[in-house]
């Protein structure tokens, strides 16, 4: 088991290295540099600034410098936020993105599964049709449309919630971003649950259970819910991915200082170190998670270890 874990760990290193080198080359290949501006700099001022950030060195040397920094755990200074290091920006941005993402997933599961179940139980009823048309709308309307509409209604017209992140010190600022982010997922999960539940309810073991005189509530809770959840569970992977990418838009619209916003701004500003830092951070995160899953598989299923 230990040998298996070590092997997997070693296998992850080249992947990460490859990601770093590719990302490094790609951000540097993008036209323009971090200090280009409409107010072009005098040549010697530009040279000074490039020298200060070692941008005047050959690319290979810059890569070497960056890698040796990485080995010391240093992601370097941000080029755009000259008073902050990349590590500091990730440390402030990631917890926020994570919080909002997790809340959105929880909300999506809660509302999606319950409304999907209700719709399945009342299949064909008015309620079912309402839930499903809501779900259809939720899937079809993109985040960048939903967000401003919610803001207009709940913040501008009704003044119930803040329109922007920095507009309120309390928890209220989470409501709109989380709902916006969760909405398409609620819709998807509701449809999945409904379809799956209808299928399960039509199966023999449910009919048998019903024939034994079980109450609907117990029937659903004890027998139907578990098999219904299978497709929803396998959808969680794509859902998390969608929430990660969706967070870029949501953070931009609501002015949330999360990792998504830093990533987009960083790419547009050619903030090489910030973009690289976030790529490396996410890559490490994903590789670690995959690794954990692989190791867990190894624990559960001995056949995997022997391969």
């Amino acid at each position, binding site marked *: 088991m230990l040998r298996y874990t070590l092997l997997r760990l070693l296998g992850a290193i080249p992947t990460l290295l490859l990601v770093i080198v590719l990302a490094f080359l790609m951000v540097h290949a993008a036209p323009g540099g971090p200090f280009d501006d409409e107010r072009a*700099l005098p040549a010697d*001022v530009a040279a000074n600034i490039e020298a200060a950030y070692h941008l005047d060195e050959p690319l290979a040397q810059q890569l070497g410098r960056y890698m040796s920094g990485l080995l010391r755990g240093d992601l370097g200074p941000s080029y755009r936020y000259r008073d902050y290091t990349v590590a500091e920006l990730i440390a402030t941005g990631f917890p926020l993105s994570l919080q909002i993402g997790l809340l959105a997933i929880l909300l999506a599961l809660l509302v999606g599964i319950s409304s999907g179940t209700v719709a399945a139980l009342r299949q064909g009823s008015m309620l079912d049709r309402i839930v499903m048309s809501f779900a259809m709308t939720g899937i079809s309307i993109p985040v960048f449309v939903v967000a401003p509409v919610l803001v207009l209604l709940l913040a*501008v017209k009704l*003044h119930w919630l803040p329109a922007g992140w920095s*507009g309120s010190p*309390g928890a209220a600022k989470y409501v709109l971003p989380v709902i916006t982010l969760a909405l398409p997922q609620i819709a998807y999960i509701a449809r999945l649950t409904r379809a799956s539940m209808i299928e399960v309810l039509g199966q023999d073991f449910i009919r048998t259970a019903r024939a034994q005189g079980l109450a609907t509530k117990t029937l659903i809770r004890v027998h139907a819910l578990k098999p219904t959840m299978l497709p929803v569970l396998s959808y969680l992977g794509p859902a998390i991915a969608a929430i990660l990418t969706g967070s870029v838009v949501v953070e931009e619209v609501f002015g949330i*200082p999360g990792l998504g916003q830093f990533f987009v701004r960083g790419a547009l500003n050619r903030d090489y170190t910030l973009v690289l830092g976030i790529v490396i951070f996410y890559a490490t995160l994903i590789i670690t998670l995959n690794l954990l899953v692989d190791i867990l598989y190894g624990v559960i299923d001995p056949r995997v270890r022997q391969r």
Partner: protein
Amino acid sequence: MLRNMRIRRRLFLVLVLATVSACGGSGGPELSSSVLNRGISSDPESLDAHKARSLQAADVLRDLGEGLVSFTAMGEMTGGTAERWDVSEDGLTYTFHLRPDAKWSNGDAVTAAHFVFGVERLVDPDTAAFYAQFVSEINELEAVDERTLIIRLARPTPYLLSLLTHPATFPMHPGSLSEHGDRFARPGSMLSNGAYILTGWIPGSVITLQRNEHYWNNANTAIDEVRHHVVTQEMTELARYRAGEIDVTGSVPPDSFEQVKKELGDQLHVAPYLNLYYYGYNLSKPPFKDSPELRQALSMAIDRELLVEKVSGRGETPAYSWVPPGINNYEPTVLSYAGLTQDKRNQIAQSLYKEAGYSADKPLILELRYNTSDTHRRLALAIQSMWRDVLGVEVTLINEEFQVLLANIQAREVTQVFRSSWVGDYNDAHTFLSILQSGNAANVPGYSSEKYDALMQSAAEQIDLDRRRLYLEEAEREMLADHPAIPIYFYVSKHLVSPRVEGWGDNVLDYHYSQHLSLKAGE
């Protein structure tokens, strides 16, 4: 059982509604009489005045620091840290007398040496300051004593006072630097000599400033706390303004401008602004190299009145000069054809186009580059059709990401006509005219004229302001006749200012110090 469930469901609904409205209670906008909320379109690169560059950084820095000279709310020059100054007869020596009560936020006195230290750090290559060449006309700074500073100039520089209002020339506290190193400009460690101190900065979200009790003019500062909210999207900023979260916006979105004018007309402030929108030619390659007729033809065929009225539509003024109106001691010279009707201009443009060797059978084929933005796209589309209709030019529009466009403009390889703009750094014609001198980094068309350079040089040597002005005007006339670029319009500054804000003044530099503003109580 069923009945029971129904009751439960109702209870649940009530609970949900209660939760939502409870959230609403705490989420409503904060209308404290002592907190001013302002919108800025991006984070400052830095709040170290020497590492800052953008207009947004300067906006925040003007709240935190103070130069020798400052501006009133209406944009008139006034004493800053210096209470008065004398200028020698030859215009080469300025003596500044600092206020005895000028203090840093830790209570230390602001001394002449702090200004000397600031400029020395600004020009030190190790600082890698964007504005390092900003003070190139200054030969020497001398701190005669704690409160007397002498600035000696290489040449008479009438805009020196204007430069001394810019954050790049603010004083620096050497002790703060040696204690905190290069990262002194952060909440908790940054010392300021202006009306406010930096108490919080969440990158990408908000910068919080609080009253500086040690500021010499603290008694006249009305607002206790200022929050600069970073709002990258103009539409979001407008929504937040309407929701009452922002009192002063940095801009107004083009698509909502008409609606805003109708609904919030009394809160909308549109004012002339020292900012030129222009199209540059790549003068180092054909077809525009050595072809002034063609350059003039394209310039004349643009109906600027129509553009500002129908396309940009936010109160901009058509540009027939390089220097915007409203500049101190200057009367911009205008393009020779400015007095003609558009029909007449079109006719002349057509004959110039022929003269340059183009015709319907042999049309000019052109690429027009602009950076991704709705306004730029619409303008480019309109100009594309004007050039096609009047001259028969076949224009391909190429929209590029901003950094890509900048790189292409600098390389001068693929560009032909490109969009650009220039914002004045100080209130003097020099800030606009100097960029077209040979070799200036911001001379993106690559214009180079001996005559123009000589006139600019002569202007620089004048002590007499009126004679200097004549040289500058002559230089502009000379340059406009060469058509190195097409001035299209002058931007206007656009802000929404909440009715509860008092003391707002429109000015051409678009500087709005928070210390001049106050908030009406109880609204």
